[in-house]
């Protein structure tokens, strides 16, 4: 069945460094991949998405890379700040069949940024 997983459950970086959060997925039929940030006591916040026919998409301080050959997704955060400390989830969206409307989430990576 579908699954989205993460290589690393925790990541610690120094303020100002670049962060890379990785995600493996298994559903080659997914149409979109999405990254969310969840701070303590809050709901997930949309960061960026990428369509399955793209390899790279950039936002403000963030870049998402998609490698369909190895079914791998990554989120790069430039000049990481203490406010970036949170749990980051990757999610996939497959518009077909029984997955219609459903986001499938990975387990999450805890990012800690040290001042």
């Amino acid at each position, binding site marked *: 069945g579908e699954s989205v997983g993460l290589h690393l459950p925790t990541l610690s970086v120094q303020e100002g460094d670049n962060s890379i959060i990785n995600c493996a997925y298994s559903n080659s039929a997914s149409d979109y991949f999405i990254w969310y940030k969840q701070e303590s006591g809050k709901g997930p916040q949309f960061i960026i998405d990428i369509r399955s026919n793209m390899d790279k998409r950039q936002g403000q301080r963030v870049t998402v890379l998609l490698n369909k050959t190895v079914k791998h997704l990554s989120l790069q955060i430039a000049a990481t700040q203490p406010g970036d400390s949170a749990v980051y989830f990757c999610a996939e969206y497959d518009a077909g069949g029984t997955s219609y*409307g459903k986001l499938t989430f990975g*387990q999450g990576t805890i990012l800690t940024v040290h001042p």
Partner: protein
Amino acid sequence: EAGVTQSPTHLIKTRGQQATLRCSPISGHTSVYWYQQALGLGLQFLLWYDEGEERNRGNFPPRFSGRQFPNYSSELNVNALELEDSALYLCASSLGILAKNIQYFGAGTRLSVL
């Protein structure tokens, strides 16, 4: 512009009781989604409503149900509560059929079943 709002923030119930959780989507959004986030687990899809109709549901028993009102707000009802129902219940909304991949979440309702 207000985001997705959920109430109550916290809810404490005992086994066998019923819980009702409420959600108001972002203005203009017609789709509402419910997810369960149990401790140590990722988000699990529960239900999706659009234009008042249930469009899809996840692998949860029938005692998890809900509805969407004409103003697009939604309720999630959990009957015959069990201890393992304790979790953060998150509501999300999207613009509708054409934008399901971008879902905006509320802060959630923390349900504790004692």
